């Protein structure tokens, strides 16, 4: 398991799309360093040959019938949009 001091806060914040202040970076690095140090003890567990559990009661291949059913109206779907115009969500330009 990697060392607790390896958390590169700038890299992880970029991956998480989270703009952190210098103060947050320093606080989180220190606090999460402590948490990661605690987590180190998982190294003690012998997990050789143990299958991972993703869900306590795995239900697999849950299919829904391919049948149209009523959904949200355009007005309801747009009700919480931070910016909208002509029944569309307005977003910053993503192509030059």
């Amino acid at each position: 398991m990697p060392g607790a001091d390896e958390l590169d806060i700038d890299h992880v914040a970029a991956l998480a799309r989270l703009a952190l202040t210098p103060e947050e970076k320093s606080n989180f690095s220190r606090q999460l360093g402590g948490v990661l140090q605690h987590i180190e003890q998982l190294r003690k567990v012998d997990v050789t040959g143990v299958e991972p559990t993703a869900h306590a009661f795995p239900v697999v291949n849950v299919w829904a019938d391919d049948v149209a059913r009523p959904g949200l109206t355009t007005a309801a779907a747009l009700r919480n949009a931070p910016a909208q115009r002509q029944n569309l969500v307005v977003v910053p330009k993503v192509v030059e």
Partner: protein
Amino acid sequence: MSAAMAAEIHYQTIATLAARLAAGELSAVELMQAVIDRTRAVDDRVRAFNSRDEADALAQAAASDARRSAGEAMGPLDGIPVALKDVIAVEGQPLTASSRMLADFVSPYDATVVKKLRQAGAVLWGRLNLDEFAMGSSTENSAFGATHNPWDLSRVPGGSSGGSAAALAAGEAIATLGSDTGGSIRQPAAFCGVVGLKPSYGLVSRYGLIAFASSLDQVGPFTRTVEDAAMLLQVLAGHDPLDSTSFTAEIPDYRAAVCAGPRSRRLGIPKEYFGAGLDPEVAAAVRAAIAFYAAQGWEIQEVSLPHTEFCLDTYYIIATAEASSNLARYDGIRYGHRSQSAGDVTELYEKSRAEGFGAEVKRRIILGTYVLSSGYYDAYYRRAQQVRTLIRSDFLRAYEQVDALLTPTSPMPAFRHGEKADPLAMYLCDIYTIGVNLAGLPAISIPGGFTQAGLPIGLQLIGRPFREAELLATARNYEQAHDWHQRRPNL
């Protein structure tokens, strides 16, 4: 007149009120008005509610009365005010998760549990405060201010469903719903002296519940008695095609099963749940409960859950990993907070999230992103999932010998606001509750006494998967011989 009948309306049980409504002694509007009056009188001190719509609740109550006069009452919950943790969607009502991110969000649809409550005639009453996005154990992490424990306003109500527990303890609802990812129903129930049930994973639909950690989250009831929990679970439980992890389990008549009493009488005491850090008054209450069951003729066995010491770390890897993924949807584009100072789209994501989320949510997103990131996934996330298998096996092995486990719900009674400033100290509050979520088991916290200082103590009973009826019957066995659940705070 019985003690329950003599209690103020806002402190009566679902069972009592259902009988009184059916007998015509009380109308749903009178009941709702009594709860509104009580809430107006105490909530400026308790601060359990994020929002409430009195006119809407009274209109629902009037509709309930109209159904009843027409002979069309929809069952025992018809006309009973049930308030909801502010992570459960009610169409046309605010849904904030106690976050600035969703401060102005209005639910476009009903959660499945809300649909079921409506079909049962319950009056949907108010949105209750929580730790932002259900991340915390004290309800101090709310963007809208902390909730106060009705038993001692200087103390926390627990969390993350602190508003749900406090509102019920203060008489501001007849029952409430919360959600439990690592103890978020049971620990606040313990801190506030009420009953809190976390159902088996998959018994209750998660559709319309704001996601925190999807493999752990469950919706469940807060009530004044175990019988009330059975009545509310009856409405909530059942398969839902809209939740792909919903389980197809047989749903018994919980209330009848609970009132009939437990069928088996073998109780396990996991030795790892009585270690260092357990408050002596809490330990004494649990020991007294063990003695009670023994005196009732139960077979008491010490059992071992050897991987208990790894539950906390396993939980904080899995829960934060799932949270970092679930909360990626809050990007400022289609709904939620959008930064007004961003240039390009990446900056819009980064700033909207920075402005919308509070410190604990950011911390957990960072941790979850880290444990899932390239190069660390196997060391952290995969390993935690493997340890999760071992934790689950521990419980299943114990159930070869016993039918239920009895433990403290929380290592300590309610602590003071600001007392757990260090995140790790706060995380350690959950050590007796998180194993249950990792294993997907049902568990209940019931009132089990009071400290010298007058703070409630919670007992946790953990059952077999999808055997809620047996678990509730076991809990009621204790409840019927004690009166802790009938005590009320001085407010």
